[in-house]
Each structure stands twice: as C-alpha cells, then as structure tokens.
C-alpha cells in the first residue's frame, strides 16, 4: 500500500487474511450496510402499523364486498410465486457480484427486475379489476386498508425495480467496483425484505381473507 489513508470514520481498513465478502471490502461498507439494516427495521415498523390497521378494519366492509367474494386465489398465488422466484434470482446476482463477474450480475439483476415488473403489473391488473367492479378505496374501510397496505408494498417493489436498473447501468459503465458491489448487496437486502413483507401479506390479507 502506497499511503495509509485514515478515514473520516476512523476505521482501519480491512486487511485481514480471512475472507471478507466483496461488499464489505471498503472501510465504509459495514457502516453503510448497518445503516441500511436500521432503515429496514424502521420500515418493518411502518408495515406493522399498516398490518395492524388492516387487521382492525378487515371486517369493516360497509356496503362493499368482503375479502372472500373479492380475492381470486389463482391471482395472488401467481403473484407470490413470481416474487419468491425473484428473491432467488436476486440472490444469484449477489453470487456473481462476489465473483466480480459483471455480466452475470447484470443479467441476473435484470431477470430479478423483470420478475418484479411482472409482479407489479399483475398487482395493477388486480387493482384495476377491483376498481372496475366498484370496489374502490372509497367503498369501505376494509378496502381503504387493503389498497393502502398492498399498494405500499407494490410501491416499494416499484422503487426497487428502478433502483436495480440504475445499478445495472452503473455496473455496465464502471464494472464491479467495491462501491457497486455494496449497492448490489444492499438492493438485494431490500428485495428480500419486501419478499418477507409479501409473505405476511399473502398470509394475513389473502389467505385469511379467503379461508373462513
């Protein structure tokens, strides 16, 4: 090493002999990943509040339809399958990133984003269908809570797609730099988190909605 650079954060560089994943190679990386974990924990509280709201209001159907008559089992099973698969493909992109293989990382990120887009479009179709039969956010408290909870998750997924595409462009420009490897890792953390949230939506909103 030519010069030892002391970081603003005062951490010594990782120069250990033992294995350190690529996304943790920069001095700042563990701090940034830790910060993102903190973000995810507060996002979890946010979703918890939305879930609580939904659970309180799920039987408050006013003059509108209840969940049993509304939900289409095949539709939400498809959405679930697509999203769970995308979590797996995202994991593969992390694997390629750690091997410093830019093309593999990009391809698998693109597949993940495409699956995400398929999920979002299915969800939009589902929403449009409900709206077309008069089941809107304004119909009842149950539907207000449904659209808000599921829609917030969908918005998160949409942001994730744009984020992944921006990382893809950056990798194509610069290759797998240490900073980009961290970004690939973090976007996948985010993606897995959304998957976990979806599992709860699948259970609490859809399954409990159709099984009585």
């Amino acid at each position, binding site marked *: 090493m030519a010069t030892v650079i002391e970081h603003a954060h005062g951490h010594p560089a990782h120069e250990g002999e033992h294995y350190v994943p690529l996304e943790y190679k920069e001095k700042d990386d563990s701090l940034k990943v830790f910060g993102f974990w903190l973000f995810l924990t507060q996002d979890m509280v946010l979703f918890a509040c939305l879930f609580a709201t939904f659970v309180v209001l799920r039987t408050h159907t006013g*003059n509108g339809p209840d969940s049993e008559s509304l939900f289409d089992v095949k539709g939400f099973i498809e959405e679930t399958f697509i999203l769970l698969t995308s979590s797996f493909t995202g994991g593969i992109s992390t694997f390629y990133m750690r091997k410093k293989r830019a093309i593999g990382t990009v391809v698998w990120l693109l597949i993940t984003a495409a699956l995400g887009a398929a999920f979002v479009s299915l969800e939009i179709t589902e929403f449009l269908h409900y709206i077309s039969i008069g089941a*809107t956010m304004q119909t009842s408290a149950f539907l207000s809570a449904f659209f808000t909870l599921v829609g917030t998750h969908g918005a998160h997924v949409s942001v994730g797609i744009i984020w992944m595409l921006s990382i893809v462009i950056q990798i194509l420009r610069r290759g797998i730099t240490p900073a980009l490897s961290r970004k690939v890792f973090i976007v996948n953390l985010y993606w897995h988190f959304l998957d976990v949230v979806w599992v709860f939506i699948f259970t609490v909103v859809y399954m409990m909605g159709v099984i009585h």
Partner: protein
Amino acid sequence: MKGKQQTRRLLTYAGLGAVATVMLSGCGAQYQVLDPAGPVGQQELNLIVASVVLMLIVIIPVIAILVYVVYRYRDKPGNTAPYDPHFSDSKVLEVIWWGIPILIVAILGTETVRTTFQLTKPPSNATPITVEVTSFDWKWLFQYPDGHVATVNYAYIPVGVPVNFVLTSDAPMNSFWVPRLGGQEYTMPGMAMTLWLQAAQPGVYYGHGANFTGRGFSHTTFYVTALSMDKYQQWIAHVQQSAPALTQTDYRQLSVPSVIGNETFSSYPTGSFENTVLRDGGQYMAESMQMMNKLHPGTGSGSMPSGMTMPTTTTTNKTGHKKHK
C-alpha cells in the same frame, strides 16, 4: 449575588406552598374537583389526595437535599465542606432510591387498580336509572328511556340514585364531564359507553364538553340539576304533558352544527339513540352491540324498531361526507 438568588428561590417556593395550601384547603364549590357532590367524585378525590401525599414523600426530600447540597457544596473560596471528586458509587444509596419509588408505585398502583375496578359500575344494591347522552356539534341531547322525555343542554337527575349515563356522539368525539359529580368519559361516534355518576345532595352542577370539537366547543356547557326522587318524577310528568315532541326532523336538525340554548321534549323517536350508534359505526363494535342488547333487548343485533330505517344517504356516500353540509 448568590445570597440574592437563594432568597429569590425561597420566595418562589413560598409562593408555590401558598398555591398548594389553597389547593388542599377544601375551599368551596368553585374548586369543583376538590369539592365533590357525590360518591364517584369523592372516591376520585380520595385517590388524588393519596397520590399527592405519596408523591410528597419523594418531592420534599428532593427539594430539601437540593437546597442543602447547592448551599453546602458551592464553589466558594474557603468552603470547608468535604470535596471527593471520585465519590460516585454507593450500593446502599442506590438500593434506597430504587427501593422507595418502587414501594410508592406499589402502594399507589394498588390503590389505583382498586379504585379503577370499583368505579366501573354502581354498587349492586342500588337500582340505577339510565340517561342516554348524545353529543352533537355543539350541543348535548339527554334522553330518558324511563319517562321517554328528552332535554337539550341540561339534565335532571334524582339525588341518591346511581345514574348510568350511556354516552355516544353524532359528531366528532367529545367528553362528558360534570366535575362535581365525578370524572369524565368520551362520547364517541359508533360507541355506547356507560359512565356511572351519582349526586349525594341536591344542586345544580356545571358540566362541559372536555374534548375539543371545533369552533363551537367553548359553548358546549350544560348543567345537571339533582333533585329528590319525588321532584324528579314530578318533573318528568310535567315535561310529558307540557313540552313538544322531538320529531325525526328535529332530531336531524340537532346534528347540524350550531350553538343553541336549552330545549325540552315530551318524547323522542323510538330507537333514535340506538340508530345513531349503529349508523355511526356501532355495527362493528362488539361492546356497543352488547350494550344495546342490555339496554333494549332486540335492537342491537340489527333488528330495527319498526318505523325506523337507516337513512340511506349516510352509508353509501363515497366521498366520506356525512350528511350535514
């Protein structure tokens, strides 16, 4: 300079002491909470006094120690008080100041729980009367199921008998508070909740909405008059004969936001209280349903009294705008 500061601080404490004395010296009907006119208010006052006494066990030593320490250990040339910059740990002291507050909370907590459970309903040997209370913007409707009469912005109750005020609202939540009779409870749309109060002596008691409800909130005053059972029944009979009936139209008029004076009605549309509760969300509240069934078996489970239908405009309007516009 320092002497002056201390004098001033002492003066402040003296002033506070004077305030506290006024607070605790009984002081007459103006100090409504401290001068209860019924058993509920009395029990609440007992708890208040208990809590003040228990808290003073901590407060007085704290202030005494503060005054002593600040004076004794002030940084002044020639101060001979001991100086021990590393005295920072004492198991004995820690045990004392963790222990005493725990003890105080245990005592006050027990007392609180006991009073909380005691005040949930009137003693079982008394037969309470029921008054249904609805808060509107910005007025109070009192309905008396026994005599089927209604009043606006004032209420009559008999002395010595527990009164179950069943509370709801056909507007944003308010709170029903008659300080000399006892503490308050919220009136909430879609809910029917009971607050038990009782007057031990005849009198006119100030009442007011205690939860902010918008522009007319300051005018949500009402008076509760307590009189002997005989006079109370005479009053009901008198109202039944002399006052006009509260019609469905009048009832709807009440929910238009306004400030009005006292009104008296010889009757009211049957089921109007229950319908208001159901229409404003009561159908989703298990507790309100139970309450309805208890009050009027048969009304709560969705079977409406004949002649009463739910105004259809209120539940289907998609913009969230409730009636009165």
